[in-house]
């Protein structure tokens, strides 16, 4: 009998996919990882929704629009352990540097008054998720269990964290792996 693999779901909200790219820097260690791990909803699998029995959810990016809120809540509902991955998930990161500018001013600058804009109009398609007033860190929207700082966290951070968790140890990052940049 083989032991059941641990289900991992991942997503990038208001992020740049840099954390996902860093995760892929695990390189040959990914081969060892998939011995113990099965990927559920993730850009790596193209599965659209979380199974209801995910073990670990890795979330990159902050929360900038209504869709991000729905996705984050889906992850919280379906993952036993939710992890904020990277600077943007932890404090909003670079997208949050819009937070002291009003949303109206942001939209006007990008779509109405900016240099070289033709046919200026604020995008208003029903398919587009509505922007939030601010970009929020994950922990201000749902309960987060662990935080992996870094921009991005290095592959070694993912490895240290996941191997600890898979071995049933309380994850602990050594000094060299805690970086906010």
């Amino acid at each position, binding site marked *: 009998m083989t032991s059941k693999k641990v289900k991992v779901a991942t997503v990038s909200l208001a992020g740049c996919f840099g954390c996902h790219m860093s995760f892929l820097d695990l390189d040959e260690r990914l081969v060892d990882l998939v011995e113990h791990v099965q990927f559920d909803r993730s850009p790596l699998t193209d599965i659209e929704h979380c199974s209801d029995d995910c073990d670990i959810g890795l979330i990159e990016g902050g929360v900038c629009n209504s869709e991000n809120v729905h996705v984050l809540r889906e992850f919280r509902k379906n993952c036993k352990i939710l992890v*904020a991955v990277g600077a943007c998930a*932890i*404090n909003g990161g670079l997208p949050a540097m819009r937070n002291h500018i009003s949303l109206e001013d942001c939209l006007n600058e990008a779509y109405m008054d900016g240099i070289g804009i033709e046919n200026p109009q604020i995008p208003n398609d029903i398919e587009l998720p509505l922007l939030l007033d601010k970009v929020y860190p994950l*922990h201000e929207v749902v309960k987060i269990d662990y935080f992996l*700082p870094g921009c991005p966290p290095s592959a070694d951070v993912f490895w240290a964290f996941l191997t600890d968790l898979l071995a049933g140890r309380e994850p602990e990052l050594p000094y060299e792996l805690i*970086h*906010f*940049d």
Partner: protein
Amino acid sequence: MTKTFEIDGKKIPYEEGQTIMQAASAAGVYIAHLCHNPQFTPHGSCKLCTVKVNGRNCSACTFPASEGQNVTNVSKELNEDREKITQMLFVEGNHFCPSCEKTGNCQLQAVAYHLNMTDNHYPHFFENREVDASHPDVMIDHNRCIFCTLCVRASEEVDGKNVFAISGRGIDKRLIVNSKSGLLKDSELDGNDCAAHICPTGAILIKRTGYSVPIGQRIYDHAHIDAVALASEGEVHDL
């Protein structure tokens, strides 16, 4: 006979008039701090150096050492308090480390690393704070100011200029510049002043020097802040 008190069970010699912080640094014991710098009059405002003296919380940088004191510096409770204080500093300002020139050399960041802080815990203020880049050699990014007053004290005590001050109280306090326009360019600040180089965070920066040290060679990339602080601030000697 030398007078002594104890920190975490270790005998610390002191001279009359020394603070707990001064005696500890001289004896090679690190007490976490941000607003303290041995060059200047202690300010006692950041509260990171809070220790238990005979069971009561005191700021080590201002509290005088005395015979037979029993001081607790490192405990789970005190370090958790220090982490919460550091998290409050992070959410009160706008500290986006990946886009800050000071990253890797920043004492606020290094204290957070030292305390094993991985998140900011509290809701962020996302305050709108100004940047003053008017001076030819020095800039102030108020987003990163933690009101430690080191620049205020350096300007007053070392440079003899009074370029900086803290205005307002509590949540409304802010760093102000002593010039008619309120801008740095109209103040007496010179790029070589002590006050221009003393900021523990990335709030006061020297222009055209950013990112000159590569990642991996910055102050806190490998060294903990306790070792760096003791080497640069204390007169470390074997007891």
